């Protein structure tokens, strides 16, 4: 059984734990400049949105270049985002995306 990725988990812990611990252990961390705190707050949606978009909209073409490619998978991901925005319910959004893709694939469309 492979354990190679345990090393990656440790490295991921090494960059995650400080963000969690420093504010609790360093006195008066909450007195950081407001703009620094605001920047930190905005990183999450920007990174996660970028990951989702590149995952379903970017395709590698023979020769090594990258192109923008619309697909049913992108529609399903968009539907998930819309449902979360509407109902604030991630589980419902995920279920809708999975069911949509499963149905489209069963029908030979996606």
């Amino acid at each position: 059984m492979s354990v190679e990725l345990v090393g990656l988990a440790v490295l991921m812990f090494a960059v995650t734990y400080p963000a969690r611990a420093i504010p609790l252990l360093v006195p008066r961390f909450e007195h950081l400049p407001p703009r620094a705190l605001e920047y930190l707050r905005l990183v999450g949606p920007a990174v996660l949105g970028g990951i989702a978009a590149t995952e379903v909209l970017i395709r590698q073409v023979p020769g090594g270049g990258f192109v923008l490619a619309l697909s049913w998978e992108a529609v399903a991901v968009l539907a998930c985002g819309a449902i979360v925005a509407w109902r604030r319910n991630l589980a419902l959004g995920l279920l809708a995306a999975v069911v949509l893709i499963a149905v489209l694939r069963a029908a030979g469309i996606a």
Partner: protein
Amino acid sequence: MTGIVASAAGFGVVFGLTARGAGFSLVEAVAFSTIVFAGASQFAAAGMIAAGFGWPAIVLLTGLVNARHALYGAALAPWLRAQPRSERAAMAHVLTDEAFALSLVHFRRLGFTDRRGYWIAAIGGVFIPWNLATLTGYLGGQAVPDPGLFGLDIVFPAAMAGLAVGLATGRREVVALGAGVVVALAVSLAIDPRVGVVAGGLLGPAFGLAVPRRDPDVPEADELPADPDAFARPDRSEDGMLP
């Protein structure tokens, strides 16, 4: 707390399935859920491993995705100030989105720090369900030979999109999200998706900060107060001591 437990368990099962699909061994999947214990970055890493990303890019993105935890610590720090340093260091490892939300609401409702409440929320409400569910999802995945057939391969990008939308609670977050997506796509087309995601994560927030607040005197939804003293402060701890 039942909703949080159900959410952690459901999402944990999906992570177990995703990890299995990405080629993790059982030990590796469990190691991610116990050592990293940060859902969004675990999903991101699983997808990036499956896509062939190198470790440096995954670690960098993990740092970016989890940077928001610093805000949770900053908001809870005034409440936990009286706890022993070693206990606060341990509390930090289980400080997730859910643990933060549950404990802050709980402390504010009580008006004092309930350290047992924190541990119950963080360990009982999230850590244990998340890890048991990871195990269940991974082992249950043996019965699903082709996750793509059931649409399960869409879970990772859909979860990323859903989490991003869930965090976009104000105008600035929405602009940061939109800019992060546009920058990530543009840089991906010009260079590489690995570089694109990092560029979007770094530049997106800058666009968000450029958006003027609707009314400077009225905080946006979910906004940390500019004046740290405006954090709700506990009047006393559970044992009656001032923090």
